[in-house]
């Protein structure tokens, strides 16, 4: 499957995956983040139940303490 992750095309060797699976595959480790799938914000408690499919557009924003 191919998805658009932060405006860049990324390929994964599977048909579909949950958000949590994508985070593990990409080795994303930051604790606080915002994820939007096709423009819709996905709250943290739905990371295991939200399925990402071929062609989906994912926007990810990392939140760092400081301000």
């Amino acid at each position, binding site marked *: 499957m191919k998805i658009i992750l932060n405006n860049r095309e990324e390929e994964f060797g599977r048909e579909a995956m949950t958000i949590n699976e994508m985070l593990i595959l990409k080795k994303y480790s930051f604790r606080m983040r915002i994820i939007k799938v096709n423009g819709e914000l996905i709250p943290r408690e739905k990371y295991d139940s939200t399925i990402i499919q071929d062609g989906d557009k994912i926007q990810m924003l*990392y*939140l760092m*303490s*400081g*301000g």
Partner: protein
Amino acid sequence: MRFPEIENNLKKFRVGIAGAGGLGSNCAASLARTGVGTLVIADFDKVEPLNLSRQYYFIDQVGMLKTIALKENLLHIRPEINIVTHQVKLNRGNIPLLFAGCDVIVEAFDAADMKEMLIETVQMELPGIPVVVGSGMAGWGNTEALRFREIDKTLYVCGDELSEASDDSPALAPRVGIVANMQANTVVEILMRKV
């Protein structure tokens, strides 16, 4: 466009400032100078001596509520500005009430979990109101890493999205000031688009 016209356009808008620390106080000062009509400022904290290292407060304001101290400073910059203050700790319940009716909301917290909470709450409970986020500004130098991203028409981020602040790597006035003003610049851009 001349400044009086810019001011005249901006005075009808209302901007929410979630947190009156380094980002919020500096961003508010910049927005007040540019002519935004109303600022809605929420914070529960008091000014502490260490805050003076990067926040828009003065030594004689130590011990004051940040909302009151910031209002005082903004009125010294621009007496005609309308300031609404809320002395509360923001949460999922009160954010939709306190910031309803704002044209833009500035995310100006220090802690990453609060940033996440505010963005989630505004995007889900106040759909359509743009949020301008500050993320990643600890340390010094590395000016070229500070960037701006428009994720979509309701979510914008300023900062390097990388430098996490901690006791050993605090956020300092220069980079916090840059990011606060990037946020203010983004707010002005969003508002001027609506004119």
